[in-house]
């Protein structure tokens, strides 16, 4: 076929075009349908584009949070193309989208890096030497090894974990099916320890509404100023960007607080190039300005926050009405619903009643007459003041906060954050002149002081009162998990052993002990994840975890760093080779993903792999329902039924919005999910994100503070050796490590790079484009130096998640600290110092 002047040439395969001249066809469209949407191909469910081509409804479901609905174009049983597919829940088309990754799926499916068959390791671990075996051999070997390990070390010695490589509800992150199987064999669940600092810092103030909630991006335009704190939205959540620019177009000011000039920062009305890890000090200083200039929202503080609560100086706890002789009430309340994004064991609720008893013992406040009364009874509680409770001084939570804030005058904070004092004042004025939305990213979350950065920011919302209405809010908001799915599918049992945070695992594996008791773990099953690439401190991971495992089983569809170290590799199916439904999504929709093609080679969907494992492990009937039936069990709940959402309807409509209203705004009417229903910026009973009995400084956790992170600051213990902070970016060319082997994208982004400021490069004699070795005590990594004036001097930025075989030497995750904050129990990806030197070894 070739292009010629004939309008029909090259188009003859399309029968419906044979009677349509080119000019006529074009004019019809361009002349009569001016909108962009009309110019996009619009396919109905099950529609065929042509006799040769079939279109399926698919969902791209990696961890970018987009979960975009795609047309999967299939020709000759091959996925030849993907394109954006219309969301029925948003007739205006605002969330119809696709990106470079969604577009390049054909390579992910058909590329040579696909795992085709079950394989057994024959060489050294990590050598990449395999032999092909049958499914039967693989399953037999797994079940035999597991049975042996269980007999020798106990059931807990089988562990399992995942990453975020699939947002599916039966084969992915939201799936209860893994718990059904592994709880049955009493295995140990290893919980990933990511994104936890933000969660802890926010949720301990406002409660849990399904994690990471924020006003829908379509509400950004209703804010006067949108503050983006350390979120590289233009790379990592590019699907949200158009909402931001549309807000700018209607007058919203965009403020980006980021040490790095991201594409987003370049578009900002104001870019605040802050020193890394100091966001908490900046937020506290903005609060200082608000307090100092008496700009705070006092009615909101009095009615909707813990500000007037009296805090006992002896215990640090709220003075309760029971202290003052008022009998607490006991009430029954509904148990919290289940978040689809929850990384807790989905069997946790087995055997629990649907209600919980709750003791209501109101905190005391000072009424305007100086008397202590219950918070809900006071007409006009005092924000400031002390109360003498039997000789124990009690002060209002607000006074304690203000005292804390007074350490952060703009001049002082300026020293910490490297932001001019007058800029801090300006930011405070912008933030008080609402409504404002503060979208927090994963930047400040990635240091050991991350809990406090989030805590400080949500506390600022308490001072401004800008939360819970259109144009006003503070939160993370990239993902929206459905709140209210049913995790208790048929066959679910409670876990016998507690979950273990991935950050504790190296020590447990090293010592064989957990909480002082023997706790051998000898086998690990990994699905939908690539921890050897994406978890911190790879050398520790390989030495302590992999090195102490007798048997590592990995199910994946491409050869990842983690697959490389497996003893048995199981070929998982690609997303488009199986049916699933997505329930964690920036779109806030359940989205149905059809099976477009049969699983390639000998691959199987994760749930089918589970079924096979269950059978071999002696539970042939455990996972006996069909995929459809499981999905129905997950979705068909009374609360969702009220919105008309059933599995049947989801399948029929392809996508269904799971909130009653649009745009969704969390915390409406300032109803918070804390005990008091208020924003408790004073945390009465600080707890940890994951309890392994670790100690922490309770006093520090009541209120937000700035303190140094573990390593990434001038003067840290590592400072004498290493003077560059190592930050990462989640580049548009991958989603974590997914797509890292996609050659379409590798043509655009061929090799690992490290971005440096020219000043730092000059000091080290590094030429632009030369290979450099980045190193610290933990490891090293070789990459090409790219000089970039958008990088803060003293910092380096690497686009993350290349695979080991793509480096000349080392890998990025080797350099990352596994030190964690005991409260957040979070991987601190940015809390690293490194040095960089010229690499001459070819």
């Amino acid at each position, binding site marked *: 076929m070739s292009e010629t002047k004939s309008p029909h040439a090259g188009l003859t395969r399309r029968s419906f075009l044979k009677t349509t001249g080119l*000019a006529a066809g074009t004019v019809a469209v361009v002349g009569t349908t001016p909108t962009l949407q009309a110019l996009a191909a619009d396919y109905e469910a099950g529609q065929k584009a042509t006799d040769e081509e079939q279109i399926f409804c698919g969902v791209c479901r990696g961890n970018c949070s987009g979960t975009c609905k795609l047309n999967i174009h299939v020709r000759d049983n091959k996925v030849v193309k993907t394109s954006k597919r219309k969301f029925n829940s948003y007739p205006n088309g605002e969330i119809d989208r696709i990106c470079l990754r969604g577009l390049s799926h054909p390579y992910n499916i058909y590329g040579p890096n696909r795992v085709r068959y079950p394989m057994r390791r024959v060489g050294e671990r990590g050598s990449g030497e395999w032999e092909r075996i049958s499914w039967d051999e693989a399953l037999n070997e797994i079940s035999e090894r597991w049975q042996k390990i269980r007999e020798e070390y106990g059931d807990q010695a089988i562990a399992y974990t995942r990453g975020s490589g699939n947002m599916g509800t039966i084969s992915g992150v939201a799936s209860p099916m893994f718990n059904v199987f592994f709880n049955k064999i009493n295995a140990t669940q290893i919980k990933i320890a990511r994104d936890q600092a933000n969660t802890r810092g926010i949720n301990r103030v406002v409660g849990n509404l399904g994690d990471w909630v924020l006003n829908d991006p379509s509400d950004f335009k209703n804010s006067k100023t949108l503050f983006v704190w350390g979120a590289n939205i233009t790379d990592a959540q*590019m699907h949200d960007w158009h909402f931001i620019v549309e807000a700018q177009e209607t007058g919203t000011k965009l403020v980006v607080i980021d040490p790095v000039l991201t594409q987003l920062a370049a578009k900002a009305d104001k870019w605040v190039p802050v020193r890394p890890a100091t966001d908490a000090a900046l937020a506290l200083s903005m609060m200082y300005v608000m307090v100092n200039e008496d700009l705070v929202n006092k009615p909101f503080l009095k009615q909707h926050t813990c500000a007037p609560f009296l805090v006992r100086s002896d215990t640090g706890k709220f003075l309760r009405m029971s202290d003052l002789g008022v009998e607490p009430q006991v009430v029954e309340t509904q148990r919290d619903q289940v978040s689809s994004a929850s990384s807790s064991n989905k069997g946790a609720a087995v055997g629990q009643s649907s209600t919980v008893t709750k003791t209501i013992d109101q905190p005391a406040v000072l009424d305007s007459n100086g008397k202590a009364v219950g918070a809900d009874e006071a007409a006009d509680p005092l924000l400031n003041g002390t109360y003498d409770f039997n000789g124990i001084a009690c002060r209002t939570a607000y006074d304690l906060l203000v005292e804390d804030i007074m350490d952060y005058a703009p001049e002082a904070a300026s020293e910490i954050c490297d932001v001019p004092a007058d800029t801090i004042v300006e930011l405070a004025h912008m933030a008080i002149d609402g409504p404002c939305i503060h979208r927090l990213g994963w930047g400040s979350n990635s240091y050991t002081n991350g809990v406090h950065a989030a805590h400080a920011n949500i506390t600022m919302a308490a001072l401004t009162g800008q939360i819970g209405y259109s144009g006003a809010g503070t939160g993370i908001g990239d993902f929206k998990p459905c709140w209210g799915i049913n995790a208790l599918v048929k066959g679910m049992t409670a876990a016998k052993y507690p979950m273990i945070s991935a950050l504790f695992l190296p020590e447990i594996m090293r010592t064989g002990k957990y909480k002082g008791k023997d706790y051998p773990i000898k086998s690990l099953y990994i699905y939908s994840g690539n921890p050897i690439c994406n978890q911190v401190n790879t050398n520790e991971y390989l030495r302590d975890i992999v090195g102490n495992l007798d048997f590592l089983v990995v199910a994946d569809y491409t050869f990842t760093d983690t697959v490389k170290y497996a003893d048995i590799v199981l070929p998982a199916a690609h997303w488009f080779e199986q049916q699933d439904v997505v329930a964690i999504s920036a779109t806030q929709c359940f989205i149905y993903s059809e099976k477009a093609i049969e699983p390639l080679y000998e691959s199987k969907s994760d749930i089918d792999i589970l079924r096979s494992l269950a059978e071999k492990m002696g539970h042939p009937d455990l996972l006996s329902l069909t995929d459809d039936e499981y999905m129905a069990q997950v979705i068909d709940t009374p609360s969702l039924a009220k919105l008309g959402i059933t599995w049947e309807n989801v399948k029929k409509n392809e996508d269904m919005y799971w909130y009653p209203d649009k745009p969704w705004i969390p915390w409406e009417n300032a109803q918070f999910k804390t005990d008091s229903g208020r924003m408790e910026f004073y945390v009465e009973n600080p707890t940890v994100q994951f309890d392994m009995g670790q100690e922490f400084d309770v006093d520090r956790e009541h209120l937000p503070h700035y303190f140094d992170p573990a390593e990434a600051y001038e003067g840290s213990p590592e400072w004498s050796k290493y003077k560059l902070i190592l930050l990462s970016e989640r580049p548009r060319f991958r989603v974590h490590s997914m797509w890292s082997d996609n050659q379409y994208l590798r043509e655009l982004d061929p090799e690992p790079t490290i971005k440096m400021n020219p000043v730092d490069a000059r000091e080290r004699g590094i030429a632009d484009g030369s290979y450099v070795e980045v190193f610290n005590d933990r490891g090293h990594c070789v990459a090409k130096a790219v000089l970039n004036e958008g990088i803060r001097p003293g910092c380096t930025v690497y686009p993350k998640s290349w695979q080991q075989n793509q480096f000349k030497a080392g890998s990025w995750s080797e350099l990352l600290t596994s030190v964690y904050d005991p409260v957040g129990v979070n991987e601190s990806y940015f809390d690293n110092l490194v040095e960089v030197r010229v690499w001459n070894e070819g």
Partner: protein
Amino acid sequence: MANQRLGMTIDTKRCIACNSCAVACKIENNLPNNNWWNRVMTVGGDHLDAPEGTYPNVKMHNITVACQHCDNPACVKVCPVGATYKDEETGVVRQDYDKCIGCRMCMAACPYTGVRSFNWEEPAYHLDFSVGDPDVTTHQKHVVEKCTLCWHRLAKGLAPACVEACSARARHFGDFNDPDSEVSQLLSVRSYEQLLPSEGTDPSMYYLV
């Protein structure tokens, strides 16, 4: 019927260099390896995503550059055999691979660096089957190719693949000769630039600034 002038507006305030348009083009047109008809450029420093200036006083923006489908195309004039030509009805600058003698006059003539690509070897592909649309023209060795404005899609009443794929909604497609078209409307309310206006080629790609 008046002739059309099909083209695009590309909003530089919206473009974040995500490369979705480039990849959409790559797949839709089953482009050979290393061949990119539509490319993202950073207007700033020496590298993609690098700004000009000195930290923190820096700035950058992006443009995407493909064939500009000029109203006065330099390439069409110089092609000795008429293998590159302007379609009078749509204004689209087209190429006939079967006719191209591979002299590369058009590449020398086009002022827009790098929008044309000569297949210096037998086209090779990452996958062993054709991806994208079945109606795109088969790629040939030793001929020049470039953006077709998704000619095969225009015939089906669809906008070019890059326009559909732009998640920033920075790209709009339409007829500049129709004052009611979306693109004409955008030009009437927004400031815009054409690339290298001094070349006198009058591109049908307008960059909204």
